[in-house]
């Protein structure tokens, strides 16, 4: 078996991470192809190599040199395609890695070098020129995200398999869509024929998912719809317009916006027989029926290929379809994600009863806190549960919101609110490194924070947080959290980390995490909790922020019983 080494470079990052199993599978696939099925196990425990700026390369090189010298690999895979940002690799990084590998191999056969890049390099790009002599000697290759290979391409390399493995490693567009689509809370009044018809408690906002949306829409429309006119109907979802524009650019299609309020001419230009039609939501289907009728008034033979981003009905959770009947004809509606959204008639809407003004879906949402309505809407939806694992230093809170479920259902919304608040409080742009307990709620929020805002999230096991001397306790140095914190310890340019917990009561978790962080010589920039039951607790050396607070420790202990009654009722 032939040995191979992987150098997972992560440009723009400060925190090293353990390489996930999905990425290991990707590297294995590449190694198998380039070593023609003779790939052994990679010769090192894989951790990423963070290069915040090009200059970090020099600090990383001794370890790279040691690794390559010890392994004497037949193949070196340099992953330059999976950084925090889509950036073509700088000359200094490609040149440095290449020179080190060649230098180490001096006197021996140089390893085959495979560089994974986001987009294929141009032949006259300086980094390409560095590798070109090796490509000419069939000792190197570049592999781009789309599976294109330049250089020595082995017969066993399957571009489609590579693309699938890469997508699996990075997470599929559907997975990312579900982690990035924000349910934005508010009192949204919906009109039918100009009159108030019902209210909805939230609207969906896909402004951060345009890439995923366009990929999924292109896939749903299929290659046969290239150059076909695309109609988009999006009066309440401006984000869809941008996703549709990207789709149109990719498919080389004309984009046409439908405005049903212009009864005489809701759109411009002719309607082809099979245009594409993109809408944001298909709920009862009434609006979509109106759109289809408008198209058919212009061309009675029109049968659009319909993609709805969201649907409240259908057979599958994602990438499925439903049938909509319009004037006796059946139309298939492909949807990307199935969702649910309650509707309140004017008599049953609490906010209408309280006289709260209605919002439009297009109103900006720039407040950095959570409204009472938003917080309790989420809690009512997720439910309450008896508090588990009550610390010994305080009485039980009795019932507490099911925060894990709140985060599961609202991760992107909470992540956005959290980012807005932190951006306001920590004015200077800098590291956004979250340290939190390794628990399900935090994990879901971490997914949203990393997908939406490029945060680094370090999840520390509860056993380490609760340990009496966490920093000194014996730990497995290959644990993800240890690798991450250890990589930051060795830097001098980390402004501090953000300590996060779902909710704060006694402050014990904060203190436990602080002990862990202290052990690595790092500073706490601030504390953050979604919900603070003990807002008067201020014995911290760094500021504490929360999205919502209520003093639950100084009352009767039965503070949530009315809420439970409301849910039951």
């Amino acid at each position, binding site marked *: 078996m032939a040995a191979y080494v992987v150098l997972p470079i992560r440009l723009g990052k400060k925190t090293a991470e353990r390489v996930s199993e999905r990425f290991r599978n990707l590297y294995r696939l590449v190694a198998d192809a380039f070593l023609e099925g003779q790939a052994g196990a990679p010769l090192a425990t894989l951790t990423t190599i963070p290069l*915040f*700026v*090009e*200059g*970090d*390369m*020099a*600090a990383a*090189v001794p370890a790279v040199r040691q690794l390559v010298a010890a392994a004497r690999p037949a193949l070196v895979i340099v992953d330059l395609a999976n950084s925090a*940002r*889509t*950036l*073509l690799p*700088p*000359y*200094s990084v490609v*040149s*440095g890695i290449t*020179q*080190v590998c060649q*230098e180490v191999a001096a006197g021996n056969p140089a390893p085959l070098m495979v560089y994974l890049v*986001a*987009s*294929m*390099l*141009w*032949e*006259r*790009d*300086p980094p390409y*020129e*560095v590798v*070109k002599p090796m490509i000419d000697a069939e000792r190197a290759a570049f592999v*781009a995200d*789309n599976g*294109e290979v*330049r250089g020595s391409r082995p017969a066993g390399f399957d571009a489609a398999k590579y693309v699938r493995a890469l997508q699996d490693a990075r997470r599929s567009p559907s997975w990312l869509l579900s982690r990035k689509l924000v349910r934005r809370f508010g009192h949204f009044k919906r009109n039918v024929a100009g009159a108030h018809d019902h209210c909805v408690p939230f609207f969906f906002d896909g*402004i951060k998912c*345009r*890439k995923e949306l*366009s990929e999924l829409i292109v896939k749903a429309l299929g290659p046969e719809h290239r150059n076909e006119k695309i109609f988009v109907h999006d009066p309440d979802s*401006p984000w869809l*317009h*941008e996703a549709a*524009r*990207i789709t149109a*650019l*990719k498919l*080389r299609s004309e984009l046409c916006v439908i405005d049903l309020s212009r009864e005489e001419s809701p759109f411009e230009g002719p309607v082809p027989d099979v245009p594409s039609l993109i809408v944001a939501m298909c709920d009862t289907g009434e609006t979509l029926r109106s759109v289809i009728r408008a198209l058919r008034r212009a061309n009675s033979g029109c049968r659009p290929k319909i993609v709805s981003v969201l649907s409240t009905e259908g057979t599958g959770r994602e990438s499925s379809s439903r049938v909509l009947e319009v004037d006796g004809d059946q139309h298939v509606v492909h949807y990307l994600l199935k969702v649910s959204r309650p509707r309140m008639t004017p008599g049953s809407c609490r906010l209408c009863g309280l006289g709260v003004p209605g919002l439009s879906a297009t109103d*900006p949402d*720039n407040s950095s806190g959570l409204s009472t309505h938003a917080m309790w809407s989420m809690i009512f939806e997720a439910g309450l549960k008896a508090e588990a694992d009550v610390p010994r230093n305080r009485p039980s809170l009795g019932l507490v919101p099911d925060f894990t479920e709140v985060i599961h259902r609202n991760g992107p919304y909470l992540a*956005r609110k959290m980012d*807005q608040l932190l*951006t306001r409080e920590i*004015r*200077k*742009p*800098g590291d956004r490194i979250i340290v939190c307990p390794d628990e399900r709620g935090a994990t879901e929020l971490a997914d949203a924070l990393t997908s939406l805002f490029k945060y680094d999230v370090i999840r520390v096991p509860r056993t380490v947080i609760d340990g009496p001397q966490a920093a000194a306790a014996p730990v497995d140095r290959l644990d993800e959290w240890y690798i991450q914190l250890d990589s930051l310890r060795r830097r001098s*340019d980390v*402004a501090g980390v953000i300590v996060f917990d779902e909710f704060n009561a006694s402050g014990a978790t904060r203190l436990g995490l602080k002990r862990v962080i202290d052990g690595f010589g790092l500073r706490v920039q601030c504390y953050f909790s979604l919900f603070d039951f003990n807002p008067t607790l201020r014995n911290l050396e760094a500021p504490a922020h929360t999205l919502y607070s209520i003093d639950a420790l100084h009352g009767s202990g039965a503070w949530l019983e009315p809420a439970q009654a409301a849910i039951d009722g």
Partner: protein
Amino acid sequence: MPSGAAKMQLQTKTDRTQAIVALSGLALVGQLEAEIDKIHAAESGEPDELVFDFADVSFTEPTTLQYVISLTLARARRGRTTKLRLPAGEAGARVRDFLRRWRFPGAFSAVTGIRFFDFVDPLDHHYFRGLGGDRRPTRYSDATGDAEGVSESSTDAPRFFPFTTWKLTDYLESARISDEALDTWSDELVLSVLDRHLQPVNGGSELASSGVYVASRIVFEAMTNAIRHPGANFIQSSSVLRTPRAAAAVASSRTPQKSAADAAMSTQPDEHFTVTFWDDGTSMGKTLQAAILDGRSVRHEYPAALDTRYWLTLVQAESEVSHDSHLIDSRAELDRGTPAHIALLATIFPGVTSDVSGRGFRVHPELQSSEPVLATQGMGLFALVRTAIDRFGGAVTFRTGTYFMSVKRARSTQDADYRVKIIVKAKSTPEFLGNMITIRLPLRRGTE
């Protein structure tokens, strides 16, 4: 005044000299600067008050506006006053909309500290919307960028980015500025538009994304270059994509008697994508020359494949004399005898670093000396120029200190890779404040 003409007027009021530069039709940076240079060359020298009279202007571009910002800031530091007459009437409405849409007032104030209202001549205050002016629908849709950094949306998204200002003291780490710019330019919509409109020339590979190349090799490198300039407090960037349709609209606005088709035919050269970067730091050529004079190493080894030859023409603006053009090789010696204009040219050589002070690098000196093969800085501007010219068939210009430098693909007769023209400004012209890099790329035909 005929379209495209300029008029300069000098006068003295009491004990203060005033100069008015009136442009008509197109307000392009070269023409504007030529008029300003004439004012400085006059016997009275730099005027106490300068008025940019754009009343008859029907078209301008971000590069011109960036020059206005830089000059006004430089004059303010010298205690001079500068004013602006806005494009007038219905004919100037499109340009006023352009100024708003490209967020020129905010960009101007952020850097100069002067309220835009105070910059505009009081005679034109009636155009301010707060005072009831320009209430008709704008020609350009509003940008809907928000706190989340959404760049552009709505119907004219492809026209690209308005002025963006980065204040270096707002950042703990200046590298974040390059990342921010990269994030904006890596937006999927931006990449898609650039992929659609830009194409490689001379049989260059179609596999590489044009959008990713602009983001990585032009925007990121230009920003990384700017943050390394000593003394820089601000960086600004702006861009415009002038598609055939937009170019035709401009043409028809300046020559209304022509049909739209005629206008489109006559304005093919106007179809371009232009991006401008400016910082108020020390002149890049001067910084490099200072390092050379200090005897510091500014060169790093690079592969022979990147050897580059420049066909250089030096022009003295004062005498309008062109020195003989000659070839310069990228391995030309850089020493204490290197003239200032060659030092400026050397900033785009492969392997020559623009970061002689090490501001953008945090390499421990020990590591740097033990890992000499890694000290491979100095490819940023070289990669930028090569991408703009060789990949996209465009051109790059630099305005800094007392120099204007343009870089284009060499003619086949010149036995060089690039032809470079360096204009040495007249002694009477005050030094340009900061560094302005403008990249102009032609568009793929038939993309509308």
